[in-house]
């Protein structure tokens, strides 16, 4: 493990994923910006983040659950290959990538909707 420093891990990821590393990094930036924008909209509207957060967690959990059996397929095998707890742990960690992306996307949409609803209500009053 001592040989794995951030620089070598970066180069291994860059060589493993190729252009997909940058696609994923770009997606992470966009989704991160979406989360920040959602939070700012909610704060501007004076709305709590509870409902968008719950929606994001539920959507993220569902997406993760859907992707867990797909992870072994990505490695050219099937769900039966997962045997030990460490196998499941890594399958979950990998499935969390699309899970988090889904959750972030849902958070942004739910926050926007929530903030818009509040401004509609505020406007009608």
């Amino acid at each position, binding site marked *: 493990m001592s040989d*794995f420093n951030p*620089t*070598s891990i970066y*180069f291994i990821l860059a060589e*493993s994923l190729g252009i997909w590393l940058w696609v994923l990094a770009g997606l992470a930036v966009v989704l991160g910006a979406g989360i920040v924008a959602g939070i700012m909209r909610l704060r501007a509207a004076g709305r709590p983040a509870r409902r968008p957060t719950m929606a994001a967690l539920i959507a993220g959990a569902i997406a993760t659950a859907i992707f867990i059996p797909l992870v*072994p397929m990505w*490695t*050219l*095998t099937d769900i039966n290959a997962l045997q030990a707890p460490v*196998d499941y742990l890594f399958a979950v960690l990998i499935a969390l990538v699309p899970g988090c992306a889904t959750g972030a996307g849902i958070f942004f949409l739910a926050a926007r909707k929530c903030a818009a609803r509040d401004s509609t209500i505020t406007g009608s009053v």
Partner: protein
Amino acid sequence: MERRRFLIGAAALATVGLGAEAARAYTSDSRAHVVIAGAGAAGLSLASRLRRAMPNATITIVDARKEHYFQPGFTLIGAGVWSPADVTERTLDYMPRGVEWIEAAVAEFDPEANAVVTATGQRIGYDFLMVATGLKLNYEAIGGMDVSLIGRDGIASIYAGPAQAQASAAAIDRFIETGGVGLFGRPATEMKCAGAPLKITFITDDKARSKGRRGAVELIYNAHNQAVFSVAPVNAKVRELFAARDIAVNYNHVLKTIDPGAKRATYAGENGDVTLDYDFIHVVPPMRAPDAVLSSPLPWQDGALAADGWIEADKATLRHPRYPNVFAVGDIAGVPRGKTAASVKWQVPVVVDNLVAETAGRAPQAIYNGYTSCPMVTGIGRAMLVEFDYDGNLTPSFPFIDPLKELWVSWLIEEKGLHGAYRAMLRGRA
């Protein structure tokens, strides 16, 4: 290519603060001429690291091969899950800028005169020589065997190349369909990736089971001595798995000849020759040094590593004891273990660090402990991530992975992780 270098460079700069340890590489201003014989895994990795660590040195790499193969992937081609395209790349794509590549084979080593001679007759002098020629697959040493037979008459061999590994996958599938006796084994010589003969045995068993044909095939592993693997705990585990999967083992069986027409294989056994009928045989050839090395003064002059021409080298520094400006790296090095890409990954930094230190006037201190690794695939989707050193001690890199347990996460590393790590190694970055 330019864009790729820019992106990699930009990200490296971004991570430099976090990767202080890796970035604190020593350099040498030496203007020495370093010649690297061989542009395989060891040669390219050496060239990449030396280019950065010795910016004023002249670095010449000599090899005729234009294609570069990710050889650890041959097993996965033989398993039928990868294709030859997955392991085939251009040597040029990994040749560092500022390194002179002479596209010719090395025909002669003349360490007394500090020179190598190419097959085209070019004589190249050097201050330091890195021998990284790889080894020769000596199929001819098995009577009746020829590379052209692979994929025909029930003969497989994943070692010969990507196309032969693919032909072997087809041969395994045909064997499983038709049934019969399948023979596996390994040579008595030193060999690259000593786990591969076991892996292909496991894979054949697994594929037969998944197709509901295990009852139709009899699998026999012919070990060259009293063990199936040289590291005791791994040997015990593999034997346990073989027994559980009804894979028979013959000990002290070394393949001597095959008769493709009659489908008979003759083995040298403890009490004389033994002939076995087969319907399928996976042939692993004896391995030795290439002719140019074998006929040079570089190999061991006596001892167990002398006969096949492995280059005499100090096992901790890989430096030649009789020719101190010569180093042997990778498969050709006459050291107790380490004919794997994983070994190269650890050997190259040791040799480069020591050469840089020496040419910069410091004392060389880097030591290679014999680390090597064998992701022992035991079926499609599971493997044991076996890592060990010269002394046969298990040296796991990841504390959460039990090296003697069949795990999907180890398969994940084999199938998805190793190729990227290997490419990074070729670029001298991992």
